[in-house]
């Protein structure tokens, strides 16, 4: 099975499924809204792609929550099993998360600046349960596994050894087994003082991860960069920390951070400054390490030429400028007609967006796929 990624149509939100060569599945964020005329039934689309284990439970191998905002974890409680795997019930038939990939923000207490929605609280609660279990009994089986992405302040994560990935750390294991990928944790980075720690909460605590996916024997066939909702300050810090080794920021596919928000590229408000807003050169550099033929993908609503942010038309223009010298492309998940997610196949010659299906474009004109094929 070749590697591929699936990017669901969740409006201004994120929901990506990375299918690693060999079959492992990593889910990155979810935003499961009530299906309606303009809201695809993404959970059904997701479930169709998942496999069942020996006990008939749907599962994802890994689930990375970049940060605990509602548009990144909506639907968690309703659709995912939380608690020990033995308490799973066929009647509810929820999805098992074999291994949680969580930012250390789950260890923070709620505060005025740190209010969590129900789903985020549920995530934090489950992550803490799994960490507790690890502290008591060591690394657990599938359904009990957790990996903490980044160190927390005050040494809170110092005892997590095998389940902690530090900033700049690289790893290839999922569910305790080596997979055909290499992940690099770019952020969160350790805070240097209390003020900065405060600044780093929520959006700015976003996990930024680079994923090199293997295909047909090439271990670096295509590199994906997921930036969650990280804003300009973080991208500046990312650049500062990595400018001497900028290859670690290279990508073939970038998910434009914060739903193609201008705030990831500039300190100036788009609605206030308009075209006068200035781009942060450091943030642009951090987001500008596009490889030849790279694609930047906006997980957002359709991008209109207006004062909205996100998604922001100016950000789109900036991203198009970034990929232009590389003969790259920019796409928005919402641009295609129909309800199907945006899919990317990974090959030994790079990534390749799945071509639009005919059914979604001219089916009405042709009545495709309607007539059975008789055999004589």
């Amino acid at each position, binding site marked *: 099975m070749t590697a591929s990624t699936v990017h669901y149509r969740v409006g201004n939100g994120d929901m990506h499924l990375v299918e690693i060569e060999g079959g492992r599945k990593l889910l990155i964020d979810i935003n499961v809204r009530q299906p309606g005329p303009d809201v695809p039934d993404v959970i059904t689309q997701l479930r169709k792609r998942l496999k069942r284990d020996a006990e008939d439970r749907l599962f994802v191998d890994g689930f990375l929550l970049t940060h605990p905002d509602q548009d990144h974890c909506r639907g968690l409680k309703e659709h995912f099993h939380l608690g020990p795997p033995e308490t799973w019930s066929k009647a509810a038939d929820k999805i098992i998360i074999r291994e949680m990939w969580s930012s250390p923000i789950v260890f923070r207490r709620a505060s005025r600046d740190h209010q969590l929605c129900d789903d985020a609280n549920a995530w934090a609660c489950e992550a803490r349960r799994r960490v507790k279990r690890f502290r008591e009994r060591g690394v657990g089986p599938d359904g009990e596994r957790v990996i903490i992405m980044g160190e927390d302040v005050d040494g809170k994560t110092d005892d997590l050894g095998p389940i902690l990935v530090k900033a700049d750390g690289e790893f290839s294991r999922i569910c305790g087994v080596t997979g055909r990928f290499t992940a690099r944790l770019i952020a969160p980075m350790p805070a240097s003082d209390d003020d900065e720690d405060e600044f780093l909460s929520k959006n700015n605590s976003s996990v930024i991860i680079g994923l090199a996916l293997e295909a047909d024997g090439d271990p670096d066939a295509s590199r994906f960069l997921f930036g969650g909702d990280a804003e300009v300050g973080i991208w500046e810090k990312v650049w500062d920390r990595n400018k001497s080794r900028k290859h670690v920021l290279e990508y073939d596919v970038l998910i434009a951070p914060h739903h193609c928000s201008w705030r990831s590229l500039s300190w100036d408000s788009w609605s206030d400054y308009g075209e006068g807003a200035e781009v942060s050169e450091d943030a642009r550099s951090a987001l500008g390490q596009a*490889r030849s033929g*790279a694609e930047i993908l906006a997980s957002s609503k359709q991008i209109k030429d207006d004062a909205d942010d996100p998604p922001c038309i100016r950000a789109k223009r900036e991203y198009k400028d970034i990929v232009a010298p590389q003969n*790259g492309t920019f796409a928005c998940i919402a641009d295609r007609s129909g309800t199907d997610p945006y899919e990317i196949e990974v090959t030994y010659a790079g*990534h*390749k967006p799945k*071509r639009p299906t*005919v059914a979604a*474009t*001219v089916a009405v004109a*042709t009545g495709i796929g309607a007539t059975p094929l008789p055999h004589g």
Partner: protein
Amino acid sequence: MPRSVARALRLIALHPSVRGIESHFDAATGVTDAVVRIDAHLPSRWRVRGHSDNGVLAIEPVSIRFTPDYPLREPYIVLRADFDRSHPHLQPRGPNFPPEPCLLFGSVRELLQSRDIIGVIDQLVEWIGRAALVRLNDPVGGWEITRRDGIHDLVILNSGWVRSLAGRDGGCDGFGAGYAATRENGAPETYRVLLSDIRHGLSENDCRWSGQVVSDSERYGFALALVAWSGRTPSGQPFIAASYLPETVVDVASLHARAHALGCGDQLRAKLDLLQRRMRGKTSRAAQPCIIILLARRPFNLTGGHSPIEICPYLIELFGNDELGPTSHKPVRLVAPHDQVSPNLLREASGEDGAGSMRWTLLGCGSVGSKIATHMMRCGRGPSRLVDTAPMRPHNYARHALFPMNVSEQHQGVNKASLLASSLVGFTDGKMALAAIAADIPMAMGDPAKAGAVFGTEADFVVNATGSLVVREALSLPQVTVIRPRCVETCLLGAGRLAYMAVEGPAANPSVADLAAEAYRILAADNVTAAAVFGPEAEATRISIGQGCSSLTFPMTDAHLSAMTAPIAVALGKLHATGLPMAGGEILIGLGADDGLGQSWIRQPVPPWTVVETASERGPGVRVSARVDASIAREVAARPGSETGGIIVGRYSDVTDTFHVVDVLSAPPDSRFSADEFVLGIDGLSERIDGLVERNGGALYPLGTWHNHLVTSGHSAKDLATALKLAAVQIFPLLMLIHTPGGYRTLVTEFIEHRPAGGPLGEAA
């Protein structure tokens, strides 16, 4: 431009992967030529560069020609002339034709009709995208066989057998073959070779060939065929020829190179060296063909097949003193493998796997039997022996699987088994004989040698499709059940309204006779089936209950008979594939709809019966169904400390002298139960018995009574008196079944009249 073509061009332009389209209509010919520019959706690095490693362009121009008979005829689609021709999915047209993509495993014409031109274009887009990645071979779609642009000759072979030669270790063996070389209208000579499985040792003697020349354009003879296959790699894994290579063999040197690439170079080399020595000093004016077959083990199954072994045949013409070493430029011809009809091929074409190798004998080659045999033959699971006593009559052709000859050739009175065998033998590969036996089955059962000849010594099971009660009874004779294979019975019932299939248990328990009795009980229990089989309409044919396919009794169309018989063949095929049930037997009954459109089937497992007595000179056999046994045990348990009883129902066979007990009637309400005795009452009992017999048309009837003893003991004096009293009015033996803690006891009484001169008295025995 025809409207249909204009419409097609408009639709093509709508396809999301079409980047441009130019067309030209030639009014003189009515032909429209279009060049469609298709986005190959190359991966990022190739897209930037503009082409894939194998030269597929980011935007591929494709020529599409619409002839005036479009859309009845599909458009002719070709790629640019310099498109890489090593792709496996190009049509094998040869270098003089433009490269033509093989779009699908099926008919483009049908695709056009089912999904319109847009569906064809979609397939083309998919093809180009996959061609760029060389992913035209994949485990799901199957391994595409080596594309060859020019074929010279033809070899007919049993592909299943040839593939079976490729064992764990590499090898190369010689086999005999027959050939015909013909030349038509001045064209070059072509060979048609029939491969046999007879080993050819390449001895001096074996290699002296002499062909028979019929004319300038026709000659025949025997030939050598070498089959070579790969073995294991140094790590012990099977050698896999995993890279796709287009055909490159043109001479003996390139044949050696190809064999090497397929992992069987050394094996072939050894045999060709030997053949070269054998040809030394010989000269021949006419070419002596030698077939070389290389077996390539692919990483996954071939497209549309169930095996990863690709058969690659070639032909070398020997003239004597031939140079056959790895540097020889002696020409090698390309040969197309054609499968011969064989059970393996038929199984594959039927979507069946190789499971099941049981041999079986068909008893009865009438309409039902011939249909079952044909269905089974066509899926590679046919019988190896056919038995019938009757000759084929003209009216039999109304429903028989065989076709009549023309009037002058019709042989009146030829045995059905022989005719059917001569028709079906073409389905076999000659490895398994198809025997036809003309025998009177019931009569043959009296003699173990004759019975053995009927069943065949190697048969794993036998299918009784005679529709004959007497055959069923004869098969159930105790001395026959111990020597014959397990039996499956099939027939139609109720004027063809129902189909019946019974699968005997191991050691004939339950036997076909037990199962028939059980089936009558099941049929009588349902209003619809009871009416169909035992009702007034069936009254006229009451005598033929259980033998529904008698043509004179039940006129019906061939279509109806086939429809009712086909599911039997389906079930039989599954049995053949998975084996007969390990414990007990089963009954399948199909009921056809009133209008003949549809059927409903039931499948009833039947556990082994309790054999209380086996028929012998000492007395009749007594067999009790598991259901009755359980029912009696329940009734006994319900009256602890008391005797109880009832009426036993079933069949008595005169032929096998055996009682088959399949049901019980409960004791009437005025019966008396005590520790000393059970007295069977009469209240309403006659009516119940009449109702039962009427309902099942007399197929099942009271056989006698049952009661229990609280201690293990035989019949009492009281029992004997009752039995004698009942026997006096019963025209067949009366069975009294006694349930005791130590098992069943039986008492069989029969009233046999001795009529000495003037003696009016009867005597009970």
